[in-house]
């Protein structure tokens, strides 16, 4: 028996501290619980967390320049780009050696591609020189400066050397700067020329349209959620099935349906022309612009707004409204002062869900957005699958992630994440 009145840690019956004894008793339970979720944990780690981490790293990864041009990078260490003079002969010699080796290993196109993002035109200089330099006997073919410039005029351009020097580190901020329409100039980061800026516009457009879509979803979804929560059970179930119906249809099918409805020779325009509301010559442009994206995405994301609102409204006891009315409030006052504030957590949950989904949406804007209604995710997809500039794609993705987290934080500060209820 343990004496309860003793000082110090409480001991279990066998004399070990109670805390340790409790931890031991719970350890088996914890292990068993961990074992149960282990397959999912492993799956998520391999298919989600690791790839995401890899992508995020790619947004700053610049090892390629040092890997392919190690001698050149070293030779350029003492060179001062601000002098506006071409580097010393040694640098050209190093480049020739690097380039020949790279050409044989066929890695020179990779570094060409990387540097071309920063200084368009460099790719062709590298590629053309690479083909010819294979025939050189690098050891004895001096002087390298003249011969290289002779091989390709591009090597005589100081800017090209500056680019190599600027991007010779193993990590770079270049992708991120590029993603916000900036570049590394002689005096550090600077804005790109006006006509080369696209990413900021895209990011702002994505945010603006996602906000519009979120608000449209609130406006359209609130009455539906209210009906769901207040109709008798049998009718509410039918309505709930109608709300969930889109989930059973492919996203692609639904988006394509909007194409048929919204196009200029489509159902909506035909009907409006037929009623006489719209002149045949001036059919409405409802698709391949921002409007098309907003209409289609509001429709597709609506259930994600309705369901959280519904589950919150379900918990609001109807006697609150009755109580308000018994105290003299009109229907509107009772709704606005008593019902609405209690439904705000549902609106918050739905809005976060819809906004975050909208910001990263890809298929629908790609199909109905034309050029004016595409999102930043369409650009990310372009860089990942078409242009092959994974670093820039990764940087854009990282910025998107950061913006969403920031908004989440702002929301938490203003509304409080505790107020978000999914049911």
């Amino acid at each position, binding site marked *: 028996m343990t004496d309860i009145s003793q000082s110090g840690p409480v001991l279990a019956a066998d004399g070990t501290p109670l805390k340790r004894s409790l931890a031991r008793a719970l350890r088996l339970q914890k292990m068993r619980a961990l074992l149960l979720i282990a397959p999912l944990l492993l799956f998520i780690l391999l298919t989600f967390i690791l790839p995401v981490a890899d992508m995020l790293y790619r947004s700053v990864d610049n090892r390629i320049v040092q890997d392919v041009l190690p001698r050149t990078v070293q030779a350029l260490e003492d060179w001062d780009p601000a002098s506006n003079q071409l580097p010393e002969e040694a640098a050209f010699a190093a480049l020739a050696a690097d380039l020949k080796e790279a050409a044989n290993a066929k890695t020179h196109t990779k570094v060409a591609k990387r540097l071309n993002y920063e200084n368009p035109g460099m790719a062709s200089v590298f590629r053309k020189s690479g083909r010819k330099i294979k025939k050189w006997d690098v050891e004895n073919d001096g002087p390298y400066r003249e011969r290289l410039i002779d091989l390709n005029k591009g090597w005589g351009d100081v800017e090209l050397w500056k680019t190599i020097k600027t991007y010779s580190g193993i990590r770079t901020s270049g992708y991120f700067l590029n993603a916000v329409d900036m570049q590394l100039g002689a005096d550090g980061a600077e804005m790109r020329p006006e006509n080369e800026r696209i990413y900021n516009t895209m990011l702002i457009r994505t945010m603006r349209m996602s906000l519009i879509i979120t608000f449209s979803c609130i406006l359209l979804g609130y009455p539906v959620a209210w009906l769901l929560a207040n109709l008798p059970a049998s009718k509410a179930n039918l309505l709930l099935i109608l709300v969930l119906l889109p989930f059973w249809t492919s996203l692609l099918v639904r988006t394509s349906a909007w194409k048929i409805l919204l196009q200029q020779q489509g159902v909506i325009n035909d009907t409006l022309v037929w009623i006489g509301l719209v002149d045949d010559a001036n059919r409405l442009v409802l698709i391949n612009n921002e409007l098309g994206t907003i209409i289609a995405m509001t429709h597709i994301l609506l259930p994600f707004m309705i369901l959280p609102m519904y589950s919150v409204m379900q918990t609001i006891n109807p006697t609150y409204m009755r109580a308000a009315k*018994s105290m003299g409030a009109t229907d509107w006052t009772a709704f606005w002062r008593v019902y609405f504030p*209690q439904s705000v957590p549902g609106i918050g949950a739905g809005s976060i869900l819809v906004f975050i989904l909208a910001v990263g949406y890809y298929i629908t804007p790609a199909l109905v957005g034309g050029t004016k209604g595409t999102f930043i995710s369409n650009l990310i997809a372009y860089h990942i699958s078409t242009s092959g500039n994974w670093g820039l794609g990764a940087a854009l993705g990282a910025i998107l992630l950061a913006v969403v987290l920031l908004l989440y934080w702002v929301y938490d500060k203003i509304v409080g994440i505790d107020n978000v209820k999914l049911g």
Partner: protein
Amino acid sequence: MADASNVDAFVEFERVQKSYDGENLVVKDLNLTMPKGEFLTMLGPSGSGKTTCLMMLAGFETATHGDIRLDGVSINNIPPHKRGIGMVFQNYALFPHMTIAENLSFPLEVRKMGKSEREEKVKRALDMVEMGAFGGRRPSQLSGGQQQRIALARALVFEPELVLMDEPLGALDKQLREKMQFEITHLAHRLGITVVYVTHDQTEALTMSDRVAVFDDGRIQQIAPPDQLYESPENSFVAQFIGENNTLEGTVKEINNGVALVQLDDGELIDCKPVNVSRPGERTRVSIRPERVEYNKERLQEGVHTLKAEVLEFIYMGDIFRTRLRVAGNDEFIIKTRNAPDQTRLQPGQQIEIGWLPEDCRALDA
């Protein structure tokens, strides 16, 4: 309208019916008149129509037929928020997103009352229920009993003349419930308000009310002051529903001088007071309260009919003894006796004779 109604009537139901589905009547032909300042309780089992009546009075349900009048004016077509009736709900319905003071201020705000006047009334209402220090709290920070007081204060803060209460004490534990029963009745009488109180708890109904309306099957079975209801139930439903009751079944043999001779089903004869039996040959249910049954022969009147009984069970309950008997084939016949020094404690298996005053034994409908 005024000439048709009672002069004293404050609340009136006239031939009110209510149906939800068009097939069944939940409230069948309700007639009720309440004077100002009365505390009336609607008592009945669930589904008896009492809550529906309250909701019709509050305006949340519309009467299918008939007229409901408040202070002589028909209110059938007046929406709830214009009726000016205070209401306390079963779950209190305190607005969770407002503080206690904001909750109380709400009915005053919608009446466009000025800020200083509002604050003063809220303070007075909170002091009235002894919750003055709790104005800044949220409802979820209060206990059930405190929430109950706030709900009461909120229903009274805009000074309505009529207050409806829908099982307001249902969620409280027994001790707190009894305390609140007294507080509510005292407050109601002090303020002189008219109260319609709905409950299914008969003790609550008896202790609080000026009059109790017993509901069953969509009708008022009896409406009377508590003592009358308990001592002179008018039919067997009321006798069964209010308090503990012993029932014996039989046939009326004869009725003489206000005393009915009833032959029980096992052949024995007893004297009863005819309540709703009128002629010999009628089937009847005889009702006797457990505390009016006497088994001490010395205390029985001369010449009354007595019945043989066998003691089945003796239960000691502290202040009283509860004894279960077999009487005329009924195994559930209960008698209650006060725990007094001279009281005999009956033993199971004992054969006794029981009797009562004819006026305590009421012959009701079968």
